[in-house]
C-alpha cells in the first residue's frame, strides 16, 4: 500500500516561515535575559508578517510549529517551559484572530502586535501562577509585564512592517 502525501506550495511556505521563526526562537533562548520572564519575542515578527501576507490560519500554523519544534530543539518539550510557551502562543494567536476577523480595516501591525504581545505575557503569567508558582506575589509583576509587552509589541511591529515594505518593493 502506498499513500500519496501531497505537499502543496502552501505547506512549503509554512515550513519555510516556521523554520525562520524557529531559528529566531532558538537564538533568542540562547541569550540570557537580564530579567527573567522578559524577552522581546522576536519570533513574533515572522508570525506578524505571515498574518498580513497569508492570513491567520497560516500564522497559526507557523506559530504552533515554532513552539513545538523549537521546544524539541531546545529539549524543553513537555516541560514547564514548553507549556508556558504554548499558552503564550495560543493567547497571542487568539488576540490576533479576534482583531483580524473583526476590525481588520482599522488596525495595522502595531495594534495587533501590541495586543498579541500583552495577551502572550498575561497568559504566561497566569499559567505560571496556576501551575508553578501559586503565590500572590507573582501577580504583582503584571504592570511591568504589560509595559514591556507594549514596548516589544510595538518594536516587533516596526521591524515587521519595514520588512513587509521591502518585500512588497522587491516582489
Amino acid at each position: 500500500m502506498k499513500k500519496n502525501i501531497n505537499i502543496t506550495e502552501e505547506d512549503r511556505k509554512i515550513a519555510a516561515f516556521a523554520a525562520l521563526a524557529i531559528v529566531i526562537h532558538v537564538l533568542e533562548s540562547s541569550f540570557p535575559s537580564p530579567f527573567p520572564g522578559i524577552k522581546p519575542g522576536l519570533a513574533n515578527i515572522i508570525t506578524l508578517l505571515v498574518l498580513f501576507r497569508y492570513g491567520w490560519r497560516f500564522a497559526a500554523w507557523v506559530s504552533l510549529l515554532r513552539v513545538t519544534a523549537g521546544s524539541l530543539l531546545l529539549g524543553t518539550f513537555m516541560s514547564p517551559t514548553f507549556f508556558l510557551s504554548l499558552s503564550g502562543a495560543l493567547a497571542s494567536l487568539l488576540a490576533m484572530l479576534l482583531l483580524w476577523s473583526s476590525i481588520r480595516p482599522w488596525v495595522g501591525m502595531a495594534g495587533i502586535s501590541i495586543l498579541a504581545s500583552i495577551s502572550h505575557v498575561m497568559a504566561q503569567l497566569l499559567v505560571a501562577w496556576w501551575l508553578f508558582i501559586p503565590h500572590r506575589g507573582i501577580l504583582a509583576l503584571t504592570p511591568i509585564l504589560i509595559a514591556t509587552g507594549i514596548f516589544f509589541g510595538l518594536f516587533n511591529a516596526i521591524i515587521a512592517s519595514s520588512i513587509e515594505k521591502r518585500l512588497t518593493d522587491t516582489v
Partner: protein
Amino acid sequence: MKSFRWPLAMLLVLPVLLAACGKQDLYRYQSFAFGTLIEVKIRDNDKTLADRAAADLFADFDRMHNDWHAWQPSKLTQTSALLATGEWFTADSTLLPLIKLSKQYSLLSNGLFNPTIGKLIQSWGFHDSERPQIPPSQETITRLLDTLPTVNDIEIEGNRLRGHNPQLQLDLGAIAKGYAISIGLQKMRNLGIKHALINAGGDLCGIGDRGQRPWRIGIRKPSGNGIMASIELGKDECVFTSGDYERYFTYDGKRYNHIIDTRTGYPADKVASLTVLYKKGALADAASTALFVAGPDYWQDLAKKMGISDVMMIDKRGRIIMSPSMQERIKLEPGEKEREIIISKSLTQ
C-alpha cells in the same frame, strides 16, 4: 462595519470587570465575647440577616462563656461541685452535650486532653486573671498527680451525672471555644447564611468561601512577629493552634506555659506551636492541645488515633514538622523557605 465595536468595547470593559471582581457583600463584625476578641465575617446579600446573625452569635458566646466559666461561679463550677460530692444529679441540659463530647474526646486522646484537671491548672495559677508568678512545689504536683481525675471518673447515665473523684474539677478551656464556634456556624447556616468565618482569638472556623476564592488564613510565627504561612480553608473547616506563647510566666529564668502535661503535671515544653486542620471545631480544639502535649515523639501516633490527618508542629528549634497532607495545604511565606521542614509519615488510615 458589522463588528467594529465589540473587541474594543471588550478592551474597555475588561478592566471594569477585573475591578468588579474585588467587590463583595462582605460584612465584618467584632466584639468582645467568650473572654476574647471575636471577629465574624459574613458574605451574604442580606445585610439585615447578617447583622442579626452576628448579634445573636455574640450574645450566645457571652452566655456560653458565663455558663462554662471554669473558676468564676457558673453552671460549670456548680456541676464540678456536684461531681465532687459523688452523688447522682441531673446535669444542666445545655452543659450535658459538651460534657459528653469532652469525655469522648478525652478517651480518644488517651487522656492527654483532660477536662477534669481544673485543680492542677489552678495550682499553676492559670485560673487567675492576674499573671501567675511561682510554679507550685513538687510536693503539690505529686499530691495532685496521685489523685488526678480522668473522664472515667464521670459516670453518665441518661441526663444524670455522678463523680467518682473528689478532686474532679471541670475545665473545658481546651474544647469550649471550638465547640462554641461550630455551634455558632451551625446556627448561621440554619438562618440561611452560606459563607461565614469566625475568628475567636486566633482560632478560626469557616463555612463556604470568601467569594472567588476560599477563606485565606495567615498563620502567625510562634515568635509572634509576622506571618510564616497561609492556608485556604475548605468549605467547612477549622484551623486551631496551640502555642507556648499564648499564656506563660517566667520564674527563675525558666518559662512556664499554660498547657499542662497530665503525665508529668508540668507544662508541656517540647513544642512551640501545633496547628490542626479539621472539620469539627470541638475536636480541632481538643486535638491541638492533646497533640501539643503529646510532643515530638508521640503526636503522630496520637493524631492517627484521633483521626486527625492535617497537623503542623513547630518545635523549639523552629523546625516545621508536618504531615504530608498538611504540606499540600500549607503555603509558606517567601521569607520562610529557609526553615528546616520535616515531613512525617502519612497520618491517614
